[in-house]
């Protein structure tokens, strides 16, 4: 059996890749993908420790996280579309009509 710590390390690595993408990319769609990676890192933990603890709570919650990620993307794409219509770009740094 793979030791539990390895899953933690894998999940942390995936999460960090997501954070890295989020900090370095300016394209809103790539931002969404990075967030998706971070959510899936949580899913790795949930599935692995569901097995470790011998209950299905983690797996079930993982399914909910997946469904929520899809819903979040649906709303996010909608917002990115109106962003594109108003600013003719999907660059998150372009929308600066207000003071930050």
């Amino acid at each position, binding site marked *: 059996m793979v030791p539990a710590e390895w899953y933690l390390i894998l999940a942390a690595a995936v999460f960090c890749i997501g954070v890295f993408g989020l900090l370095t990319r300016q394209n809103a769609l790539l931002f969404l993908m990075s967030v998706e990676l971070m959510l899936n890192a949580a899913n790795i933990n949930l599935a692995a420790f569901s097995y470790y603890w011998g209950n*299905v709570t983690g*797996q*079930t919650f993982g*399914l*909910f996280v*997946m*469904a929520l*990620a*899809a*819903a979040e*993307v*649906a709303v996010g*794409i*909608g917002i990115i*579309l109106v962003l594109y219509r108003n600013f003719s770009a999907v660059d998150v740094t372009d929308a600066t009509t207000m003071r930050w």
Partner: protein
Amino acid sequence: MNQWIAVGALALMGVGIPLGMIAVSSLIRPSVPEQGKSSTYESGEIPTKSAIGIQFNIQYYMVALLFVVFDIETVLLFPWTVIYQPALESGVGLMTLLFPMLVFIGVLVIGLVWAWRQGAVKWARSEAATRRKTEHNS
């Protein structure tokens, strides 16, 4: 014997056979370089633009979004189907088991009906698209 050996063997076969076939065919086939082979469409159609930056009709997004949301919601049916039979056998009432899922699907149906009535799944023909098509055909 370790049960993982079978899995490993399967993986080895799965990767090995295609790689072997590619290697063997590249060894025995004749090589005839020709310009037509490296073009995008071997039928002779010349690509006019790059595929990057092309804009699709917004309706593709609408349908795709509806698909993603409803498709992913089915994920929530899985745990329910897993416990359905055992729960029924252990004496849980049919209504207690079925009713919550019916409510869940009912909520989704209301959403779908709403999207339908708003015209999200109606394939309206935009003038620009029609014009482009007729121009292309003529």
